[in-house]
């Protein structure tokens, strides 16, 4: 008994302090897959039910609705092409030399962590699809989380609602920067260190700011659902409801951020700055 306790304590120490036991996690991960897959069966069954037990009329109505939606999105996309071209032009005028382009890959949810204290999910894309640690995962509504471990054919994603997760954001209304952290509750995020004088209202939308170099900027994270001002506290308590359906989405997107150099623009600005730092101001004007 004592022996087993000592062995397990040693294992805990080794696994939490060193990366030596990582291979064991990687080898045994395939063993967990059937259980992980089985754990999503109720969700799949519900989805299958909704899909296959609907009446013909409902399906036709749904199809009509989707077609209209596609049309609306296509129309918006036309504007988008024009806007991004304009954006590119403006950026080149501002001497910005690169354009951030986000490619996505569709992934499916294959497992949910049974541990209520940690918000992990498993998706069916892994290192073989170029998934790396740190990539952002979104659903149709907003930011969901980030890849924390990429295995060969699947990867583990830490959700933004996990109590150990935080990400830099900005307020869409007035560009005030802040940090959102998870609370361990799927329906609630929390803003960190908001001073009572800061301009913030219920209904404000927060987007990822990209400042942490981890998440791409501009994805919706959540909207302010409640503000609690306690005069005795130095900071106010701001609750955010996440934009993404963090605990319900079955289909997700993994975002690859690639930085593209603007090829129609040659960049002489960065070189003089490197050569003579003293002249950087002059060259900027």
């Amino acid at each position, binding site marked *: 008994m004592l022996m087993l306790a000592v062995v397990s304590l040693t294992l805990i120490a080794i696994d939490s302090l060193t990366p030596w036991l990582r291979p064991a996690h990687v080898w045994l991960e395939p063993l967990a897959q059937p259980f992980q897959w*089985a754990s999503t069966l109720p969700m799949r069954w519900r989805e299958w039910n909704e899909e296959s037990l609907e009446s013909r009329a409902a399906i036709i109505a749904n199809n009509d609705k989707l077609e209209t939606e596609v049309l609306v999105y296509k129309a918006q996309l036309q504007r988008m092409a024009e806007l991004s071209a304009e954006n590119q032009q403006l950026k080149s005028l501002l001497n910005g030399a690169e354009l951030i382009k986000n490619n996505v890959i569709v992934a499916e949810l294959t497992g949910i962590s*049974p541990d209520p204290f940690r918000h992990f999910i498993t998706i069916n894309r892994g290192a073989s699809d170029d998934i790396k640690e740190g990539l952002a995962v979104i659903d149709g509504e907003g930011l969901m989380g980030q890849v924390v471990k990429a295995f060969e054919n699947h990867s583990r994603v830490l959700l933004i609602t996990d109590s*150990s997760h935080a990400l830099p954001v900005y307020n869409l209304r007035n560009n005030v920067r802040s940090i959102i952290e998870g609370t361990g509750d799927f329906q609630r995020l929390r803003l960190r260190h908001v001073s009572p004088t800061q301009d913030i209202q219920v209904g404000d939308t927060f987007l990822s700011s990209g400042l942490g170099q981890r998440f791409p900027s501009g994805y919706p994270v959540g909207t302010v659902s409640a503000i609690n001002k306690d005069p005795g506290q130095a900071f106010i308590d701001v609750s955010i409801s996440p934009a993404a359906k963090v605990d319900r989405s079955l289909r997700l997107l993994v975002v690859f951020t690639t930085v593209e150099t603007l090829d129609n623009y040659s960049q002489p600005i960065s070189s003089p700055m490197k050569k003579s730092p003293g002249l950087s101001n002059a060259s900027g004007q």
Partner: protein
Amino acid sequence: MPPDNSPLSLTAISLSLIAAFYLYSLPLQGELAFWRPPFVLLVAAYWLLVQPHYVGITFVWFCGLLLDLLYGNIIGQNALAMSVTAYVLTTQGYRVRHLSLPFQCPAAMLIVMLYQTIWMSTRLLSEDIVLGWPIFYPALSGALTWPLIAGGLYHLRRIFR
């Protein structure tokens, strides 16, 4: 009743443990997830009491290790918590075995409370989890589901004899 030594009881043990692992990994909506009873521990505890020549503390330790490996916890946390709980259970085995079902439920609650306490303490070393009463919800739900688990395993044992 003579102890049943047939290899069939090994089948029963492994089948019930696979079912326990499956039940453990079922997703539960939001708050409900805190109420999930530790099925693997309860099933292992049952076999520890009724089949002590097959299931010992080492067996329970390996179950815990598997649980850690399967769900990406830090290796050894569940193994430690489950083996210490199993040890306490074996020292008290002669008492627990003779309890009637209504008295087994509070015993199951104490067992799960002990397990949760050890598990959460080891987790606190390396993770920042939100402490609170939810830690002991599984003890309550474990006590409530214990009659079902014990009844189910009893029938399983009778089928594989």
